[in-house]
């Protein structure tokens, strides 16, 4: 017996409104896509060519040569550092794929951007990636070549940068295997990447590792030494023992990785899929038209569910109570999930209903998918007197202490405490993916500018200043500027650039991406919480 009954879509895919919205959404996606296209050669054609001239593969070419034939690969945070001084993608590749039939995490440095040297976003992206590796218990493959830290920027890097080595050894302690292939230099602190890995593969005549390179050695102890003697692949394979496998070339290095993964005989700890994984009755391609390009226009969350869930089947929880929070059970690619999505702002009923639903899913060990389209909790005297804080606290308690995997799908706005109530970034979801129309901030830009305007006017009034024409113009200008600034700072690209999510995806790919994320989470134990904080009844 399957879970739930099929949702009936009421979306009119032939209407002008629908087509206009799809066009606007596609425009948003086109911008994301053009940014994504820049990433593989972000180092510049000259450096890409130089890399290839040396007979080396680009990091994404190595991934293509490593993963199983026909398998999918989900790159994480591909647009990290967007809108910052660091290169888009942060000069490193992170992702989840399949090697020898095992779901693995793969990362690699992009040697074409400043010699693979780490920048501050590299550190942040790597930190997030290790978090994903650890929480989901994914075997880790590091395709490494790096000049080390980007020295001029050491101040932003050095102190926290050491954490990746700690992460590696702690992974090892947890029984999560790590394999590092040295395709090129692993210098200074970078030498600890192979040093801390369970398995190391060095590519002959290419991979090197040393704490100090020949120039530093000359400086420090006046020894004149060549690279191979100091830290070459053959030396480390035959003499120092840092290299476990000596590869003949890059392809051979990848072959060794596959052989190592094979001998892991890796077993996932989660229960895996248990439901039929038939496609939705409604085409997932229509997801792009389900959400609104303009987040101020509300939309029906069940239309999203109808294109996200297997067979469009959904068993709704408390449909007549707190109906602005759409909760219920379904499955994605056979994995049972509890769905939470917003059909409006959070009132007390919505908050308590969601808290109860989260507790039920924890009792049943069912992962949760939060579909954000939330502008916040209800305000006003009626809400306050009705205990909105007390009831909101129940929801925060539930999402904070829930231990089943959480997945965030940003299908619209995620403003204010609504983001917290929906288990946003600060609540440590396993994965967060955003649609290109996503907006995120403490509140909507207009509201924020309006609030600031009122505050300014009240301050003026408190000081007995009368708002004259000149000041009025100034206040309006300030408000408009602030609104513009917040608008820019709440876009999906801004958010993904700051690693507030794990990537912007095409809405039509949501089932694939969520399926991979949930499947990856099932690599670890899927177990619900037994304890929570004190409930404020």
């Amino acid at each position, binding site marked *: 017996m399957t879970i739930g009954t099929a949702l009936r879509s009421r979306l009119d895919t032939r209407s002008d409104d629908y087509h206009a919205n799809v066009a606007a959404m596609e425009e948003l996606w086109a911008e994301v896509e053009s940014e994504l296209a820049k990433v593989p050669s972000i180092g510049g054609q000259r450096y890409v060519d130089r890399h290839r001239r040396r007979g080396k593969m680009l990091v*994404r070419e190595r991934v293509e040569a490593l993963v199983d034939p026909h398998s999918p690969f989900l790159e994480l945070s591909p647009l990290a550092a967007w809108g910052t001084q660091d290169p888009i993608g942060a000069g490193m590749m992170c992702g989840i794929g399949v090697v020898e039939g095992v779901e693995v995490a793969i990362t690699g440095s992009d040697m074409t951007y400043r010699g693979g040297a780490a920048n501050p976003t590299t550190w942040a992206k790597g930190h997030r990636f290790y978090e994903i590796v650890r929480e989901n218990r994914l075997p880790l493959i590091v395709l490494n070549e790096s000049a080390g830290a980007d020295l001029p920027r050491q101040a932003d890097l050095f102190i926290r940068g050491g954490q990746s080595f700690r992460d590696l050894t702690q992974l090892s302690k947890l029984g999560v295997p790590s394999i590092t292939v040295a395709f090129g230099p692993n210098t200074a602190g970078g030498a600890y990447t192979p040093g801390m890995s369970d398995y190391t593969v060095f590519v002959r005549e290419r991979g090197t590792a040393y704490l100090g390179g020949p120039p530093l050695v000359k400086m420090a102890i006046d020894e004149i030494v060549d690279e191979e003697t100091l830290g070459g692949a053959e030396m480390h394979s035959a003499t120092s023992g840092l290299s476990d496998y000596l590869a003949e070339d890059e392809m051979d290095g990848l072959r060794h990785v596959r052989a190592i993964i094979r001998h892991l005989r890796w077993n996932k700890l989660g229960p895996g899929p248990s439901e039929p994984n038939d496609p939705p009755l409604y085409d997932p391609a229509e997801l792009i038209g389900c959400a609104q390009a303009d987040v101020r226009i509300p939309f029906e969350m069940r239309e999203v569910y109808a294109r996200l869930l297997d067979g469009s089947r959904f068993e709704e929880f408390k449909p007549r109570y707190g109906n602005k929070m759409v909760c219920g059970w379904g499955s994605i690619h056979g994995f049972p999930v509890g769905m939470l999505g917003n059909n409006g702002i959070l009132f007390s009923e919505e908050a308590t209903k969601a808290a109860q639903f989260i507790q039920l899913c924890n009792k049943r060990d069912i992962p949760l998918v939060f579909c954000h389209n939330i502008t916040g909790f209800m305000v006003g005297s009626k809400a306050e007197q009705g205990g909105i804080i007390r009831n909101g606290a129940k929801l925060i308690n539930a999402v904070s202490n829930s231990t089943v995997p959480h997945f965030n799908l940003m299908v619209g706005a995620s403003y204010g405490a609504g983001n917290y109530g929906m288990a946003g970034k600060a609540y440590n979801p396993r994965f967060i993916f955003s649609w290109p129309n996503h907006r995120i901030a403490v509140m909507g830009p207009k509201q924020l500018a309006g609030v600031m305007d009122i505050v300014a006017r009240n301050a003026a009034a408190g000081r007995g200043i009368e708002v004259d024409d000149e000041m009025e113009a100034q206040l309006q200008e300030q408000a408009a500027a602030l609104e513009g600034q917040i608008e820019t700072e709440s876009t999906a690209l801004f958010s993904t650039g700051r690693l507030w999510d794990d990537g912007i995806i095409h809405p039509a790919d949501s089932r694939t991406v969520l399926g991979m994320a949930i499947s990856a989470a099932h690599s670890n134990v899927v177990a619900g919480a037994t304890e929570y904080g004190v409930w404020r009844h």
Partner: protein
Amino acid sequence: MSEITTLLIANRGEIAVRIARTARRLGIGTVGVYSEPDVNALHVDAVDVAVALGGSTPAESYLRGEAIIAAALANGADAIHPGYGFLSENAAFARDVEAAGLVWVGPTPEQIELLGDKVAAKRTAIEAGVPTAPMLEIEGASFSGALPDTMPLPVLVKAAAGGGGRGMRIVRSNDEVAAAVAAASREAESAFGDGTVFIEPYLERGRHVEVQVIGDAHGNVVHLGERECSIQRRNQKIVEESPSAGISDETRNALCSGALALAQRVGYRGAGTIEFLVGTAHDGTDGTINFLEVNTRLQVEHPVTEAVTELDLVELQLLVAAGAPLPITQSDVQFSGHAIEVRVVAEDPAAGWLPSTGTVERFMIGDAESGPGRGDGVRVDTGFRDGAVVSPDYDSLLAKVISHASTRRAAALTLARSMRSSQITGLHTNLDSLAEILVEPDYLAAATPTAYLDEHPHVVAAHGPSGADEVALLVAAVLADEAWARPSGAAFGFAPTGWRNLRTTGQRQVWESARGIARHIEFEVRNGAEQAGRERRAIVDVDVAIGPWPLPGDDGALPDDQRERAAVRILDRDIDGDTMRLAIEVDGRRVRVEAGRVAAPTDEVDVAIGGQLGGQTVHVRSAVGAMSWTLAPRFESHDAGADGGGPICPLPGTVIAVHVAAGDRVADGDVLMVVEAMKMEHKITASSDSLVTEVRFAVGDRVDSGDLLVALDQPGQDGNEGGTA
């Protein structure tokens, strides 16, 4: 009159299966015999019980007349059918069978003896008034070397006991005659134990036409029309048909009446064939007719006669052998339409029709749509199936495929389609050549002299599909492999094939066809939308580029991509174990393909190639042709080379060349040995400059994956190198 209740079939292969089929239809019990290699052959499964003869060569098995008679007696058989070949024209055996109180399904021993001697047979034919060129009998060493006026040059010297072209010499000048006679006689003496030879006119250009007759013990004989079997290689027929489309009705009547007269003269009992060569005159009309010989048995090509007469020749054979009168008279024999038979043979036409041996991996004859031999109007007679072994000990005939239609053209085209759709892997076959002959304009115009194959080398060199057909079959193989490689339970198996959220390249693979052509293919599933998960029936768009992908030049830059592009749609994929039916569209052209794999490409092949990803073969067949594609391994194995031991065998196969000997110095990249595996030649090379210490296999040796092929000693690996004494 002695009714046959149980029949021993003293043969193997397709003819044993075919005889058993009629016996079963008539309710007659069947006893088979088998040699040791045939213990699980199809013909053994076709009979009720079978008796082991032991051995593997014919002499050790199917030629052991005594053992066969004993088997018949011990198993309650009351008759023996010899099929063709083996003991079928052995008069002594026929005599022994009758002496044992069993029914011999064939002519009397005396008839076999008389007609088996070509000189005596021709003498009898001349006496009976059979149309034929004259014959000059050579009396031992008394031959003067001079030809009489009745025997103009060129002439043919033939052995009385001969067959299959042995003991035969063409003579074009008078002074060569004596030497040719002596040589042919010597050859005949050594081959057949009888040095008797004779001379007859040599017809430069002609057709092989033969007449089927059947007679009973009561003096009744009918002819069942003629067959033309002109298309031959090495004097062996490969395409046969009835009626002959290339002779006049006058010739036809002369041949049939002559054959009937000869049979009547000897009181012929059973089925027999009178063979003629019909010369072609300069104006293209029928010229001289020459009687060749009488085959006192059922012929390989008898099904074409059965098709046009709607008679069962084996049934008639059993009837007359049991002493019953023929149930038909000449006027009952009616001919309808045209039938063509091709012989599918394990041989390599392009390599001079060299016989091919080995294990048949996949044996699919006929229409891919409706299963082997069904639905496409062809009859398939075979003794083979998947996994059967073609050994040098026995005939290399794999199957006979017979079409029957109202016109010759329809019969030829139907059979051509069947040949294109057929697929036999594991060894070389003449399928591609047969498919080519059947659509070749001269063949369709019935311009088929015995020299047909010599005059049409392109049909011999035919190698199956090309152009758009080859591309379609490649794409089908790739997409079939993809579906097999990702079963629904695979990790992330729900995601569209090769899905990427940040794409740099498509999926790149190199596939090699059985004839050694490598094709690079890059493909990408276009899916702005998820393609309804793994629903095989959903239409999936695939962008395909064929040809080597751009590789960095000396400056590291990639050249412009100028590959051929194809827009592919997967319309349907229906998986049934190791068989898959696909409907794909390539650039707007829809093709249905049946794909098959011999072994699951997961464990077995994986182990065989040491995790190199690849090596699996996908066989594809469709109405446009059949091909086998093997995925080139993604990775090379460097293990043994890295250990300094030398190259290890990548795949199980056979050594076909050895280029080095112990003591040789070799350089990095030198070819040491060539191993043929999976129908491809794999060059085994040195991975560094080294010294050959031992060549561990010789040409023809079987090698297994993982075997060290050539032991190498690498400088620097040897601890003593450079040391002091």
